[in-house]
């Protein structure tokens, strides 16, 4: 993945989404955080870039790439949803093991997933 600020060959959106799904399946936190930075840089370039011809061209290319990546985004959304379910199960298990779910002992609020922001809620 390209470092923020560098100019060079940009990965296609479709490849980026596939890579994110794979990294999430492997729970490769480091890779996901790298991808988040890349997306941040890409988004910044897109929004803050000049409104000249280059930016319009980039936007057009990204528009076409976005249409191509719709299927991969659906897969990513599903993997994210499965991860959230797993996280929920693991947190409930941890609470069970720690005896926090005993009746009459409301030590703390049970764990709830945070807003995922991926649009499935």
């Amino acid at each position, binding site marked *: 993945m390209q470092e923020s600020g560098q100019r060079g060959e940009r990965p296609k959106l479709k490849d980026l989404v596939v890579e994110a799904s794979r990294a999430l399946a492997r729970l490769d936190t480091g890779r*996901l955080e790298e991808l988040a930075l890349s997306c941040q840089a890409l988004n910044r370039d897109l929004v803050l870039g000049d409104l000249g011809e280059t930016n319009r061209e980039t936007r057009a290319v990204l528009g076409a790439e976005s249409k191509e990546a719709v299927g991969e985004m659906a897969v990513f959304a599903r993997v994210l949803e499965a991860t959230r379910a797993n996280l929920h199960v693991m947190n409930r298990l941890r609470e069970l093991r720690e005896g926090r779910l005993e009746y009459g002992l409301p030590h703390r609020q049970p764990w709830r997933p945070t807003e995922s922001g991926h649009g499935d809620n």
Partner: protein
Amino acid sequence: MGTINAALGIISGALDADQQALNVVANNVANANTPGYTEEKPDWQQNQPLTIGGVSYGQGVTETGATSQRDRVLEERLNQQQQLASASGSRLTALNTLQALFTPDSGSSSSRAGDIGSDITNFFDSFSSLEANPTDNALRQNVLSTSGTLAGDISNAAASLNSQRAALDQETAGVTSQVNALTGAIAQLNQQIMTNSPTGDAGTLEDQRQQDLSQLSQLIGINQITTENNGLAITTTSGQLLLSEGTSYQLSTGMVNGVTDFFLGGTDITSQLALGGGSLGGDLTARDGDIPSALHSLDQLAYSISTSVNARNNAGTTLDGYTGSAANPVYIFSQPAVVAGSAAAMSVVMTDPNDVAAAGAGDGTGNNSNAAAMAAMANQGIVNGQTPTNYYSNFVTTLGATVSTVQTENTAQNASVTQLQTQNDALSGVNLNDEASAMTTLERSYQAASQVFAMLNTIMASAMNIGEQTTVS
């Protein structure tokens, strides 16, 4: 001297405990590569303190045994996800084969199922050509030729679907013996576990049982119910009892309407197994759902084209001046009586190109009105209210959408299995990571992935001008 003896007792107790703990560690290391082995951790018990002159002296610890670090709830969730992943995986394999059958192959010169769309166009176009010159023998011959290609490709596609269904049927029947072997083995393990470890963890016996359960989960959908004394009962996901503690109930098969059905205690549970999960569930869904559905679509297409075209040809006048009747019809295709089986039986029965009724009834033999009417059928809703081309196109599109949906599900389920496996390894495997760090990894990954997803969504929306252009920090 009591104090010195007690002190020595503490030291020797600690040494003994250390030695036993070392044995447990050695056992873990020796089994590091044993599939399904669950890490054991030594259990320490504090000895009763010794009180001298009102002062308590600690008596050290004694190792009382080893407990496997497992979590049945997590293992059960892992098994459930494996059932789903296996089901969608085997269904996807079948669907990919199905889709490949209907994919046009531009490199192939021979006619095939993937060309049915262009076959339909060519068939109706041949009537348009004939319309321009209704007495031309070559154009009449072309009508028979395109009819033959269309009928051949549809009937070959139906034959391929039936072959695929038969192969899947054979595959599903083979699963029965594997399921029975596994339920038998689990019942035996249950017996041993209930006898030897009714209250504690059964160590390697439990490992074996979990491995068998994992394998069983890949074959069929199951529910696990813990019984007394560490026993286990297993049912199908719809509740039929497969085994209870030391007794297993054998699955049997029998032929029903030409396919293998599955029975448990005399009850046909095929449809429940199809919905239940595991590779058997996926294969049965393809065998009894996806393939028959595709076959039905082809049957409908073949039936509608054959009956509509035959009726129109029978109503016109042949080049020899003959108009068909109910008793002596002039048909191009074999006339199907019912929709079912129409695709497999589709063939061209007309041999003489002069029998193509290009002229309308009562018109001269050089007339073209009936050829024009047959060409116009290409744009009429003769197949369930749709044009033949649209009907076929919708069928292929629907099939593609199904493949895509199942592919998505399968990818997500496999990802979920990988994640749970990682968590399970951290908890029960011979692994340096502990549970807490595994949880942190899961949480951090989820948060980072959520960020990636949100930003990609924004970028895409912005690039496609669907939504407002906004920054995501």
